[in-house]
């Protein structure tokens, strides 16, 4: 093999691997990406049943109901709209009424959000960033959150507001 051929072999091999990687990435991008929505966005966009997305908002106080064998229902609100959520399983430690939540799943035919994952990804102020951003964008940040939150959560709500103000 000449020097040129050797070099071409290596360059050709590299390009082949890169092309493979690009194809894999593009393929995965098409199928496995999940969008984030709030209840208001769900109402506006008419997301089709069965399409997976992440739902973020506040757990509406007083709506958490526990059924048999770990079935849970609650409503997620963002000040503008509400969306009922059904979930089966153990809720994360940081799940509270009046506080932020992110759930992943899809709508069913009757318009209930069937969650298969409820995320506990909070920072130390117990507010998912996606939710905080969405609420701020809609202008429901401090007033809504501070007053609607029940007594137990109000302390952390202030903490969250401070965390954002800094």
């Amino acid at each position: 093999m000449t020097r040129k051929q050797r070099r071409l072999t290596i360059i050709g091999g590299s390009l082949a691997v890169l092309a493979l990687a690009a194809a894999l990435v593009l393929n995965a991008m098409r199928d496995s990406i999940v969008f984030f929505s709030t209840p208001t966005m769900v109402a506006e966009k008419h997301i089709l049943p069965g399409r997976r997305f992440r739902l973020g908002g506040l757990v509406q106080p007083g709506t958490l109901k526990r059924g048999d064998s770990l079935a849970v229902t609650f409503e997620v609100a963002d000040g503008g709209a509400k969306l009922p959520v059904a979930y089966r399983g153990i809720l994360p430690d940081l799940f509270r009424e009046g506080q932020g939540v992110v759930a992943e799943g899809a709508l069913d035919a009757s318009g209930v959000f069937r969650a298969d994952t409820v995320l506990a990804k909070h920072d130390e102020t117990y507010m998912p960033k996606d939710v905080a951003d969405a609420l701020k964008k809609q202008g429901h940040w401090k007033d809504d959150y501070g007053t609607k939150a029940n007594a137990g959560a109000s302390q952390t709500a202030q903490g969250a507001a401070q965390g954002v103000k800094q």
Partner: protein
Amino acid sequence: MIAEAGHYALVLALALALIQSTVPILGARLGDPALMNVARSTALAQLAFVAASFAALVTLHVTSDFSVANVFENSHSLKPLIYKITGVWGNHEGSMLLWVSILALFGGLVAAFGNNLPLSLRAHVLAVQAWIASAFYLFILITSNPFLRIADPPIEGRDLNPVLQDIGLAVHPPMLYLGYVGFSISFSFAIAALIEGRIDAAWARWVRPWTLVAWIFLTLGIAMGSYWAYYELGWGGWWFWDPVENASLMPWLAGTALLHSALVMEKRNALKVWSVLLSILTFSLSLLGTFLVRSGVLTSVHAFANDPARGVFILLILCIFIGGSLTLFAGRASALKQGGLFAPISREGALVLNNLFLTTACATVFIGTLYPLALEVLTGDKISVGAPFFNLTFAPLFVPLMVAVPFGPMLAWKRGDLLGAAQRLLAAGVAALVVLALVWAWTGGGSTLAPLAIGLGVFVIAGALSDLAERTGAFRMPLAIVARRAAGLPRSTWGSAFAHAGVGVALIGIVCETTWNSEYIATMRPDDIAKVAGYDLRLDGLRQQQGPNFREMIARFTVGLDGERLAVMTPSKRNFTTRDASTTEAALLTRGFSQLYISLGELTGDGAIAVRVYHKPLVLLIWFGPVLMAFGGLMSLSDRRLRVGAPKPAKALRGLQAAE
């Protein structure tokens, strides 16, 4: 007083770093040994001052001085001593101080033990270290000073995030930082080589041990973090493809590539430009990881309350260092002569293949991690890229790499014999096929992917063993000769065999855990029995207990197998009043390499409790593999060739280089 002293020491460290980043360079330009030697003393002095500063912060935390904002925010007088100490880096300011302390430590080590380095190279390396250090000292002093006082000191602190009150915090961040920051040494060596415009095999011989040290710590740090998440978060998951985890995985992938390419450079004087680029990229990815975690663009247990000024500052550091080093690379790389020709099928070729796949895999992780951020900045759409994306991209790229791993050490340098290597791997291949068939038969032909992946893992392990057998002549020669040969084998050969076997072990663990783990979720009342994977778990009862700074509800389970009583497991749920937060303390029962895992949910009104039980077959192999890799790294580090010190660099006689 201690806070002010700590603050002052940090300012002095910055001043020393500024001297260290300018004077030695000037000395190298002027060829003045005295000025170049300034680097050594300032690096050691800088280490002393930053260590004093760190000690001051530890003292403040241990004595619970709540007049210091950082202590007030993250400590509590009732907290156990160990968490008072680990709480020092359980927050943004403290962890950045740990970051620069480790940076200064590495600089100090180069200064103390780099006596056989050429004077100008050492001056340049330490100066580059000091550039990085200066940037981060400024960052700490301007945006994240841990020594700020509060005007009217409160009586009690706000306590540390309960999730972090665990022994994992004592080990995981320091390990991870030793890894992250350790790569700064190879970065500094690369920049120094570019500034000096010369690079040779001796350079690689200095860089390799430092890279190896960083890589060992990063490997252990990632594994430790994964195990911590597994037992502390109570979901039984050990890797979530969370951006913060990816941030540590990317430097690991690039660093692993660098280890292998530096090998080619050291042995064969080839791949110089590529090794320099990899050094730059590896540390850039470490910086990127620091940015992702510290800037608050992501939310996770790792992100402490953030403010945008910090993010902008780190982004600025990131742009200056990555942009600057890549510009320097673009300008000077052509000055570095290429040498050491090799055929595509050779040890070098195999290592190039390794580098190709590792960096490509790293690139897919990079895209998956940063694409959501880029999209949000550009269009405002929020998306999440999770495990499915990485399973579809990262995994297929890792499979060919794993197939190639056993072949690499079997091939000769310069020109290898693929057929010969394949013949020597015949036993390993047969072992893999036998295991594949056994697993497939035993699991009743369920999933085909899992037995294949396990077969691949066995192939990698058996391949590493057959390499050792081949070299020692095992099964062919008398035992005495084999023993003598084994003793005479370079430790780096043992090291690479262990590390490669570790990859296979981890793969088997990952596949077994994800494919055959069984889960049981239900509400249980006392005396209820849960049946999971053949085990009977009886809930004996619940009781309350008061801990030092929390209240705890403990459930008692009796575990039985085939009617025989095995053990008692006591998972609990802790409630921390100061932060109004609770944590789940899972109970683990280890059986061989498998584990039973119980975590508690919430109490229902009528005295029942939600319980989550997992049986995780061979789950411990997931972490045993990385430990084996790190052990291999350690053996390689103790190799005589690296211990006796690097030889003098080649004289600048380029004319003698082989030209084909």
